[in-house]
């Protein structure tokens, strides 16, 4: 997949060797760059524009045609968002909800997955099948009764309403189960015979080996809870309990013309996920592909 790929699809097979050599001589780089560079830029441009516009002044944005490039760096949007709006509060809320969800998915998911993978108990198969079946239930089918359950628990309009439904997902349980099934039993059995409880075996022997599964569950839970809008929209009314996604959406509705501030808020909303992604890109991509491909 190196030299032969330099021929473009359209080249006739007979003439290929000749054109290949001439093209190689003419271009110091693979012709694929000519296609891939502009294409990948198309994907990046809206995000570049997001960052650029967050540093513009409203005057720059509000003229027609609007400026595409800021004259200087203006922090007015950020100052407004961090000072006058409740973005810091919403940021903290999002952090609390995501952190608790990630932590509890790791702990409860590992516990459940371990029980399903290693322990024999009555009804385990039926229960596992039932849990798996719940993965395909669409959200809109459960959202109205979940709202009623949260109301009955007195959690509506609190962060608890956001945390409780995402404490553990069937996906986390199943992923841990699959991972534990692939681990050798010998070490655990030795520890068990030596008198370790199941809980200690899980946390001191199995968990350190399960780092890939832990990373996958952490990444996917963080992505899902941080980025969720629909459930906070239903469960939260009061703006002190907003998450960033809900806060940003509402803020945009109220500050229609202050685009610089809206974009500054948007950068704050997106940045944690983008940073996490850039630092742990491999883990992100492996998590996302493995979640769909292994089973």
């Amino acid at each position, binding site marked *: *997949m190196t030299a032969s790929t330099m021929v473009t699809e359209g080249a006739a*097979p007979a003439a290929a060797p000749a054109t290949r050599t001439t093209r190689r001589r003419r271009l110091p780089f693979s012709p*694929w*760059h000519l296609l*891939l560079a502009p*294409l*990948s830029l198309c*994907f990046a441009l*809206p*995000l570049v524009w*997001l960052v650029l516009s967050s540093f513009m002044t409203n005057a720059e*944005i509000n003229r*027609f045609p*609007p400026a*595409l490039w800021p004259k200087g760096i203006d922090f007015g949007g950020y100052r407004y968002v961090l000072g006058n709006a409740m973005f810091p509060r919403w940021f903290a809320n999002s952090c609390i909800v995501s952190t608790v969800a990630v932590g509890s998915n790791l702990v*409860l998911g590992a516990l*459940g997955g371990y*029980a399903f993978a290693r*322990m024999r108990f*009555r*009804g385990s198969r039926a*229960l596992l099948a*039932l*849990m798996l079946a*719940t*993965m395909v*239930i*669409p959200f809109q*089918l*459960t959202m*109205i009764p*979940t*709202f*009623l*359950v949260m109301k009955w628990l007195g959690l509506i309009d609190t962060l608890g309403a956001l945390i409780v439904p995402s404490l*553990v997902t*069937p996906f986390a349980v199943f992923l841990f189960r699959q991972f534990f099934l692939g681990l050798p039993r010998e070490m655990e059995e030795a520890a068990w015979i030596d008198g370790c*409880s*199941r*809980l200690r075996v899980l946390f001191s022997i199995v968990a350190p080996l399960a780092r890939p599964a832990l990373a996958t569950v952490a990444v996917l839970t963080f992505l*899902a809870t941080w*980025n969720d*809008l629909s459930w906070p*929209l239903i469960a939260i009314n009061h703006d002190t309990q907003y998450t960033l*996604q809900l806060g*940003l*959406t509402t803020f*945009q509705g109220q500050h229609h*013309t202050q685009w610089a501030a809206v974009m500054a808020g948007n950068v704050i*909303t*997106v940045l944690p*996920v*983008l940073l996490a*992604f*850039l630092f742990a890109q491999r883990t992100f991509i492996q998590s996302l*592909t493995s*979640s*769909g*491909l292994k*089973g």
Partner: protein
Amino acid sequence: MDRGSRTGAPRPLTLAPADREPAERRRARRRRARGEQATAWAFITPSVLVILGLSVVPVVWSLLLSFRADDLVTPGRWVGLDNYRALSKDPGFRKAVENTVTYAGLYVPLSLAGGLALALALNRRIRFVGIYRTLVFIPFVVSAAAQGVLFSFIFDPQFGAANSILHKLGVSPQGFLTDPGQSLYVLLAISLWSGIGFCVVVFLAALQDVPTELVESARLDGANRAQVLRYVTLPTLAPVTAFLVLWQLITALQVFDLVYVTTKGGPLESTTVIVYFVWEQAFRTFTAGYGAAAAYVLAVALLLAGTAVTLYRRHRERTTGAAPGLPRVEGVAR
């Protein structure tokens, strides 16, 4: 021995009554198995409570709700199939179904075709290819809310960059999300921008598994690149494609966040999709029973679509004898 009580487990209901087996060893083993049962239940009880309590219970509840007239505040009353009957005559619901079908019908093939083309282009060892892959994938991690806010700005008819660029190219300004004729397609473009990256990484992962010997031997046998693609590469991608079709279909039929942030179903209901319709019925107009019925219609549609894709895949497998070890579809529906 008493592992169950240490973790504070409630005694499981399925436990057998104490047996009167005489053999001491047998009794010990039983006790141990019982401790094991208790521990197991202690381990899974939190998950079972959350998962079943907030999915199986709501699914049944939703069904009951769909036979009722209920505003979530005052006690409702049983209306039988009236909600479903009303749905079949509701032009708003019909419009929502039409919009959703149009959206999904375009989103699924376009994201798969685009994802496959990009994955094939990105599947080579050239310089910067890592950067290209990152850039193509990065919109996928951006939340729908952030995408919506960003693109309402970019496509703002007055202040947006899109019209600014069109102006420079000499094209008259467009309405984009404010134009009923364009709004759904603008939303589609936004979703493709963020959704293609997922198809790309999944296809790329699958392309790594295409056996190189197979490609090389096909080349030696005189197959050109198009033939290798058609007869070697694409068939190996079939299982992954089936997974992606299902996954993208589920995603497309459930689109909500983006619609809520950008258009709120408008203008003129041109972007009212089914989930938005359900949400509006339940939490805006407080006709929750009616909303639940609409949700059930969508759920049944999803189920039928899923079954159809699975059956088709099985059928194809049987007729073409594709490789075993198909990926199973899984993941959080949300």
